[in-house]
């Protein structure tokens, strides 16, 4: 994979950098890492981080230390669909443990693993701010709330269907 943003994305990078004072372009680091992760396979490989460093004229180490600090940046490859299931108090009292177990059994993986076909990754996360709609998980850019076993089945089917349409 060539690690380079399209012209359109590079314009977006310029626009992002211009939001911060001159000489403070490093402030655009988190937004750029999000862009890079979305663009280059869903995780941040070292060459990707080096590319972001180059775009911001900062040292690669400044990118590594930041990327490893924030839980949304993936430091290794993940599945096409990542189930990030909340396990904190309010979700726990509404049955998140059962949901996590159900997904484990259904997909045949444990927390942190990816299915052999590279389709699904299961991750447990801490409070995502959906406590009133528990149990919940993040899937891509959106939240799936009021989870039940039936709902998990439907979400898995939906992902498989979307994947086959997109291929």
């Amino acid at each position, binding site marked *: 994979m060539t690690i380079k943003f399209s012209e359109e994305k590079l314009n977006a990078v310029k626009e992002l950098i211009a939001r911060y*004072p001159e000489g403070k372009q490093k402030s655009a680091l988190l937004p750029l890492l999000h862009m890079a992760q979305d663009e280059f396979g869903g995780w941040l490989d070292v060459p990707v981080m080096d590319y972001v460093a180059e775009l911001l004229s900062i040292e690669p180490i400044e990118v590594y230390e930041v990327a490893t600090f924030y839980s949304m940046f993936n430091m290794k490859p993940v599945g096409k669909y990542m189930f990030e299931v909340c396990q904190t*108090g309010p979700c726990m*009292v509404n049955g998140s443990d059962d949901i996590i177990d159900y997904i484990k059994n259904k997909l045949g993986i444990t927390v942190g693993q990816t299915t052999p076909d590279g389709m699904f990754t299961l991750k447990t996360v801490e409070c995502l701010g959906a406590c009133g709609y528990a149990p919940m998980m993040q899937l891509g850019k959106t939240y799936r709330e009021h989870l039940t076993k039936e709902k998990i089945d439907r979400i898995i089917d939906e992902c498989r269907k979307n994947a086959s349409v997109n291929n």
Partner: protein
Amino acid sequence: MAIKLLLENAHIEGIRSYDVYRKHGGYRSVEKAFKMTPDEIVEEVKKSGLRGRGGAGFPTGLKWSFLAKPEGVPRHLVCNADESEPGTFKDRYLMEFLPHLLIEGLIVSSFALNSNHTYIYIRGEYAWIVDILDQAIAEAKNNGWLGKNILGTGFDCEIYVHRGAGAYICGEETALIESLEGKRGNPRIKPPFPAVQGVWMRPTVVNNVETLAAVVPIINNGGEAYSKIGIGKSTGTKLLSACGNINKPGIYEIDMTCSVEEFIYSDEYCGGIAKGKKLKACIPGGSSVPILPANLLLKTAKGETRIMSYESLADGGFATGSMMGSGGFEVLDEDQCVVRHTMSLARFYNHESCGQCSPCREGTGWMYKILKNLEYGKGKMSDIDLLWDIQRKIEGNTICPLGDAAAWPVAAAIRHFRDEFEWHVLNPDESQKRNYGLAHYADPIHVPAAVG
């Protein structure tokens, strides 16, 4: 009938769009504010008695008045939308359904503080809300409320949404500032305070979403009118995010005079405990504040009705009270295990500790490990005292309040539910099969007769 200042129009169809929002009185506060001087706006906010709605409850007008104004140095307003305190999801609701209310509050506040570049730091997981806010900002700009020389006042203002990437600690204002600068979210040592040296070492005010939205009704109706709502130093209205084992989880706006009992059991609010169960415990203000058993929640230790105000929730200090905090109201029913719940919170704080201060970095992991042992029937009686000792040594010994936030839930759980912990130690097998249950936690408390 409850007073609604923020959510009054939340259910109007299309209120998310500029046209509908404007038609229902939106952006009036900006028109009014532009006829005032910035100092007059700060005065109005001071008069209102508004307290920071993120959790600390610091008076907003006072915070604004601390902002340094060195010649030739730009100042910034930063909106803290990094809502991550377990149990709290009110800012999400405001931004998702009333984005223009926040933008309106931000424009007035930016004018008051002379911030020409204002940032909304939003937690990374709220990705779809970034689009909603960007859309609202674009609409506001197209209609002349943002940009250069707004409404001919000579005031310039741009608002940018800055997305975080998953770190609870970035809700702490100096960590948020570091993160906004593109660094790890490690809190700074204070002083200097952000009001003097904040983002890019410029004077900065960081305010929560709800706080900034509340500026709109304060300017519209006047600070004095706002201060007359509520009770004591709990002025205006507060958004509560109710969750846990209740019939009607969701976001409620209250005027801080209703009783805790009414809030939990009335159909207007939580609608009672789910599945007809009994109330065992509650964390009234987000996971960091002390958990209270049912009997201390509904009444204070003095036997008075506890109401949903800053003062009443804190009545009795940490010995018998709790805190309003962020308004994340989590209810636990009789089937919930306090040991397990505390373990879950300990894991949360361990995961979210930035690692800068050793008492927090090491202490949170240690507490989680011990709580895991206790929960899974491998605990010793001495572990309970050890936990107490560890939390005490974290509290007050860290750069930022995350250490305290990690210590308090453990301390309160042991303080009020010690026998449940002991039961786990004494019944390692049974505790794996069933929960301790309601026990005596809802029994009327013994109120000692007044002395003298």
